[in-house]
């Protein structure tokens, strides 16, 4: 009896506290003249480096829009603000936090987390509550095959990562008077969801040109050596070698292509920059092709930041310690711009109207053009290929955006 008596005040207090927490942020989506957008992103854990890049990008987008007068809805000017949580790089936490943003904080406008895995977790929640989310950091193809209606992605999806290298190889073959169907392709992809997405995109394009696949190896995740595959490449003399296996794959490939003196005229590798292969292997990585979402040398322009180069300059001035602006930051900023235009087009804070307005997005930005298809992915911006030319990353494909001609054939160093 006495124990219960002692516990009653605590219980009452506890219930009151819960009620307070639940009641306080009601209607927090728009407070006074501020629109609050919510996001959970990786400030700690294994994605923290890129999570911080992305949040810097979001913040710069918000700052710029507020400086330019904010967002006009129903004739009234609003400022933007972002409410962040740290998802600790774990999808489970991301799902909890998005639920919290929607249910507890009553936020109706969302920006995505960092990485495909966490975005997948977030998308399940946003679909459940029918709250639109613009994401900038989840590239996995499987995000766009679920029939999600409230998910919009500004970046190019993973199956596009190396696809443009196939078009480039076909272009080169034609220029040399050969039929693209004569082109022989060797592929080495890590056996993980991301790399297999990349592979699926490549296979589609290879079939389009009717090219021949001479090597198609899937590398186990903990394989530390790919020379068996590369020796096969050496024997079969393909015209194009494609490699995708995160930083480990890029570093191992760069090292062993050098050691085995693999002499393939065109080599494309994902994650060249993350693996810092130029710093580590120098001239032997010359003429590698590396895909990227965005580069500051591209001739994209938009009304908020001017050109890609202007954004690059502004970002470096705003945040210390950046030698290069990572594309993760640029695309995060682009996601904020998408929200701004969607608010103004919808002229409302109704989530259904906003969803339809987001679906109609068709804009030019410093990050590239943005236009969503039915599944919510951006179909207006291609993946660009940069070639390592004397240690510098120069855009060589697609031809429309190229700043330098492609070096072909590549010489083994």
């Amino acid at each position, binding site marked *: 009896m006495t124990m219960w008596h002692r516990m009653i005040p605590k219980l009452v207090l506890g219930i009151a506290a819960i009620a307070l927490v639940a009641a306080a942020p009601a209607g927090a989506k728009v407070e006074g003249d501020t629109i609050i957008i919510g996001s959970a992103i990786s400030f700690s854990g294994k994605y923290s480096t890129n999570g911080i890049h992305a949040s810097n990008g979001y913040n710069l987008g918000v700052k710029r829009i507020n400086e330019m007068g904010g967002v006009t809805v129903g004739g009234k000017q609003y400022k933007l603000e972002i409410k962040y949580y740290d998802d600790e790089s774990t999808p489970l936490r991301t799902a909890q936090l998005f639920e919290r943003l929607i249910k507890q904080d009553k936020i109706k406008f969302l920006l995505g987390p960092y990485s495909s895995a966490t975005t997948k977790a977030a998308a399940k929640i946003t679909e459940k509550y029918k709250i639109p989310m613009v994401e900038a950091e989840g590239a996995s193809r499987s995000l766009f095959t679920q029939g999600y209606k409230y998910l919009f992605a500004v970046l190019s999806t993973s199956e596009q990562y190396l696809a443009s290298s196939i078009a480039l190889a076909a272009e080169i073959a034609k220029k040399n008077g050969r039929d693209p169907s004569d082109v022989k392709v060797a592929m080495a992809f890590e056996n993980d969801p991301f790399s297999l997405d990349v592979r699926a995109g490549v296979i589609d394009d290879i079939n389009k040109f009717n090219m021949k696949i001479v090597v198609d190896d899937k590398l186990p995740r*903990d*394989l530390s050596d790919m*020379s*068996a*595959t590369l*020796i096969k490449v*050496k024997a079969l003399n393909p015209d194009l070698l494609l490699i995708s296996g995160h930083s480990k794959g890029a570093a191992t490939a760069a*090292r062993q292509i050098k*050691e085995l003196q693999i002499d393939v005229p065109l080599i494309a590798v994902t994650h060249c920059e993350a693996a810092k292969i130029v710093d580590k292997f120098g001239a032997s990585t010359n003429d590698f092709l590396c895909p990227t979402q965005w580069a500051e040398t591209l001739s994209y322009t938009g009304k908020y930041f001017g050109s890609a180069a202007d954004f690059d300059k502004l970002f470096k001035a705003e945040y210390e310690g950046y030698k290069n602006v990572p594309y993760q930051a640029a695309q995060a900023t682009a996601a904020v711009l998408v929200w701004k235009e969607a608010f103004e087009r919808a002229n409302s804070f109704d989530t259904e109207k906003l969803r339809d307005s987001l679906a109609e997005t068709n804009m030019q930005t410093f990050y590239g053009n943005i236009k969503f298809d039915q599944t919510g992915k951006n179909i207006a911006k291609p993946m660009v290929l940069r070639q390592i030319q004397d240690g510098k990353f120069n855009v060589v494909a697609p031809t429309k955006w190229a700043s330098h001609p492609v070096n072909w054939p590549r010489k083994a160093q």
Partner: protein
Amino acid sequence: MANLELLFSIAPVLNIQLVLSGLFVGAIFALAAYGLALVWGVMNVKNLAQGELVIMGGYIAWWLSIDVPVWIGIPAMDFRLFWIDFLPISVPAVAFLEFMKPAIHPILGLPVAMVVMFGFGWVIFKLIICRVIDKDLFTSLLATFGLALVIQQLLNLAFGPEVQIAESGFAIRSFFGGMVTVADIKFICLVLAGILAVVVVTFMKYSRMGQAIRATAQDPRAARVMGIDTERVYAFTFSLNAAICGAAGALISMVWVIQPFYGMAHSIRAFVIVTAAGLGNLPGVIIAGLGLGVAEFYSGFILGAVLQQFTVVGLLVLVLGVRQIQQSRHRQPVR
């Protein structure tokens, strides 16, 4: 089967490349397996942190080989350590740091890694391993698995999750019109792995400590009765294992890549080799290591990279099966 044709009729010279690559890979794996066989055989501790000790050795060699100012990103020349301002001399921080920690070639980092890892092994033994030697199998598995996780996270905190490599800068030789290439560093690794193996075998055979280790492995109680300080023998064995792992790691940083979480692959490989070779069979470990390396390369070439590791584990199952049948013939029912 197109791959078989390629290998045996179109470009038979590739066989040389495959065998060589397999031997290079096998030699390094054999080294880590060698340490495991020692610890397993002498102390009956199945060390699941074997791969993490290897990766740690790799980080030591890598860290010694880099320019610290470049790594932590100190801008060149214009930065001074604050306390140097009070001294009559002024030294730019970059020069100071380079003086304090010069960049050492990773080959020279190898002995350093061995020494540091020997010390680390001793500390780990005193802290953890000595408490689990006489416990059952699962205690030692759990303890070393926990140790593996702790080492992974500490390396992650210290050096970040990025993939790192140490560059030897050595030449690459090519033979048969470029069809066969040998990186000098890999050849050096093979030789170093060989030398280390010979040194350890000689040590075990002829030195007092080596004899004590073997005596303890045979019968710890009898060894204690004969006046051998078995506790010290255990500590030395575990430290020796850590040192061997350190050497393997330093070599791995020069031929593959290191990352805080890549230890597990090396642990598994070491277990496979030791199990295939049999405990207490040190020459067997070396032969099994080299053989598995070559087998792995052939299967990678012929069956594709997906089945490369499958082959290694498949061979293990085969070896165990054959051995089971052999032994069952010798077994006699007790009457």
